[in-house]
């Protein structure tokens, strides 16, 4: 702790040194006075969450005498994506931008490497989970700093009552509200168990709300299923390995599961499953706690029966989708040292804890040692629903399309190759082999450099 303070202070001192020097220089240069920092954060959907982030930043800015400008950019309407693309092209804009999942990798050449900063942060916070490292260190260098706001898990959010009544699954026995996961009970929570439950709930009139669309919720769910079966599309070296028995097994399972999903699951987007759960029509969705949070407001009688818990296990293990956000510093930023100083300030345990509390437990920081914040134990009703929302039990965090090389994996994820394969079988009536052959052709296209 002491060492951290020292090193952080020296970092800050370095930064403010530049700030002072910069101000005198800045007048001469005109357009960009050093000592100015412009930041584009992800616009959090939880009311008030932005305020805590703003407060943390202001604290820093006052101490460092930096003229800080904060924009909150929503991901809706692809606003954040457009801003990032345009700023990358124009080589101008904010100094720091929030970037989710694949973006640090796709803009790696245009981002300032933050290896030095990450070394400091990791020395204090301990290691990140493997997804954060895979996505944030795409070319052997850390290209962005893991951010707390927006980073999320996409495990199941299930109806305790419906799952028990219609499928005979007692989620509280597996993932109790007041303690760690019960390993023996949780071992029964497999994809096969989910399939059986899906069938029963479908019969009872409460189908599972798992989308088969092309947006991130759908891709994450089916991606974790593929990983649980050991089905890969492209391996680490960039070879196309989609044609395998594992893929065929995963596709076969997917087809059986899809039969019990809502008829238009293929058109679902990231909001459809939320509405499905909130409307009370469904027994299970894969989603971060946003659906539950909205249900607390609009349908409290549904909300108090929702339980967040890890994904089911498959032959190769239990894989839970984790989607990290990052803060990246543009290589063109005129004030990189101040930017790094701010990100160091936001990466402390105390900052992360405040941000998690402000997000009502939605955000999950990427550092494994941060998984014990009390917010998750306290949020409710039902009390404890978020206890197993951060990684719990034997779950391995993952992201769809990993471990393919970054630029290929990004295409697989964004083009939703996995869900499209399943959709071709379910809706197009194609055989597994035909869907795989189609995927092979698509993947060849993704190889272009």
């Amino acid at each position, binding site marked *: 702790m002491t060492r951290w303070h020292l090193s952080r202070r020296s970092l800050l001192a370095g930064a403010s040194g530049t700030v002072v020097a910069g101000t005198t220089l800045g007048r001469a240069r005109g357009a960009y006075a050093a000592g100015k920092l412009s930041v584009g954060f992800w616009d959090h959907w939880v009311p008030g969450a932005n305020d805590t982030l703003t407060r943390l930043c202001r604290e820093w800015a006052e101490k460092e005498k930096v003229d800080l400008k904060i924009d909150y950019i929503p991901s809706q309407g692809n606003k954040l994506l457009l801003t990032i693309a345009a700023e990358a092209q124009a080589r101008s804009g904010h100094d720091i931008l929030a970037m989710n999942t694949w973006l640090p990798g796709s803009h790696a*050449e245009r981002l300032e490497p933050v290896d030095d900063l990450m070394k400091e942060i990791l020395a204090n916070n301990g290691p990140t989970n493997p997804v954060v490292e895979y996505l944030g260190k795409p070319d052997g260098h850390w290209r962005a700093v893991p951010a707390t706001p927006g980073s999320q898990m996409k495990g199941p959010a299930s109806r305790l009552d419906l799952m028990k009544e219609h499928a005979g699954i007692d989620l509280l026995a597996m993932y109790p509200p007041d303690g760690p996961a019960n390993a023996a009970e949780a071992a029964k929570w497999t994809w096969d168990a989910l399939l059986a439950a899906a069938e029963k709930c479908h019969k009872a009139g409460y189908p599972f709300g798992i989308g088969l669309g*092309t947006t991130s919720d759908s891709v994450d769910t089916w991606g974790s299923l593929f990983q649980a079966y050991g089905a890969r599309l492209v391996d680490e070296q960039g070879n196309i390995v989609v044609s395998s028995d594992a893929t065929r097994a995963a596709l076969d399972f997917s087809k059986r599961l899809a039969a019990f999903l809502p008829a238009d699951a*293929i*058109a679902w987007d990231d909001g459809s499953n939320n509405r499905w759960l909130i409307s009370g029509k469904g027994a299970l969705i894969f989603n971060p706690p946003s659906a539950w949070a909205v249900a607390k407001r609009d349908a409290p009688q549904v909300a108090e029966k929702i339980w967040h818990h890890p994904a089911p296990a498959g032959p190769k293990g239990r894989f839970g989708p984790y989607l990290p956000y990052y803060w990246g510093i543009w290589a063109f930023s005129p004030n990189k040292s101040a930017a790094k100083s701010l990100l160091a300030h936001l990466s402390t345990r105390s900052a992360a804890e405040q941000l998690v509390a402000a997000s009502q437990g939605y955000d999950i920081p990427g550092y494994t040692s941060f998984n014990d914040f009390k917010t998750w134990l306290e949020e409710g009703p039902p009390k404890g629903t978020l206890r197993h929302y951060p990684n719990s039990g034997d779950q391995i965090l993952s992201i769809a399309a990993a471990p393919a090389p970054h630029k290929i994996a*990004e295409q697989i994820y*964004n*083009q939703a190759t996995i869900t499209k394969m399943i959709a071709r079988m379910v*809706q197009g009536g194609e055989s597994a082999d035909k869907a795989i052959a189609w995927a092979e*052709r698509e993947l060849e296209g993704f190889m272009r*450099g």
Partner: protein
Amino acid sequence: MAQAAGGAYRERVVARGGSLARRRAWIAFFLCLPLILLVLALVVYPAFYSLHLATLNKSMTRFVGLANFTFLFKRETFWMVVEQSVIFAVSAVIFKALIGFLLAHLVHRLPDKGQRKWRGMLLVPWVIPPAMSTLVWWWMYEPSYSALNWLLRSVGLEAVPWLGDPYWARFSVILVNVWYGAPFFMIMYLAALKSVPAELYEAADIDGANAFQKLIYVTLPMLRNIIAVTVLFSLIVTFANFDIVRILTAGGPRDMTHVFATWAFKLGIESNDIPLGACVSLFMFPILGAAAIFILRDVHRRSRELAGVTG
């Protein structure tokens, strides 16, 4: 008389020599200068820059010539998008034109004092910003809360997977486009109908023409120019449409509703392949350009013929 005056004027210009003509040419040029600057700086230059982008590799570090285009030609999704864009634009424009024409006729037949009211109500879809109206359509199509499906079920019909089934999704997307665009056609045709001289119909009545014959031999020839021009404009706007498809389906299911603009966005912005996205966008230009030249040439020829007849 008019010709005489024009002739006199022209003679005066010639008499004063070339300097006046040259001065007028300069004035004419300066009047157009703001337009020229705007178009050069914010349309022509960016367009050529995009052309340049389209010849780079994915990370935009290397010139690859036409490799992006040849790459596209080998993608099955590309040909799907070409086909779907054509289906989308052509069928939407045909329905917009037919509905617009029908509505214009119906409104035209009403007594004068009722016309304004009907016209106003029918114009509403075109006046609401499309990004907003598409949102409400999407909300009406939404699987769990669909207000349309509620109506269908309440009359005993099956719920429709508006956006879930690729063919229904195509229908839904086209329906919204027709809903948004048909009023514009109606307004244009209505105004044109009013400008058709009543004598022509009287003459047709005397010749014993029925309503259908009047439509074919009087109305349609008189409206030919305006039909061509509105169809052209609508074709351009529909072909380049982004909002409606993006908000309703984002190209799904299974890419079966993607059009050029949405697929270009998917590739260029969402998948970070700006050169490829630029390539796809560029394909719109020659297709539309050909349609424009074809239709406008016809319009000009017709105008000249009409001028020849009357003058």
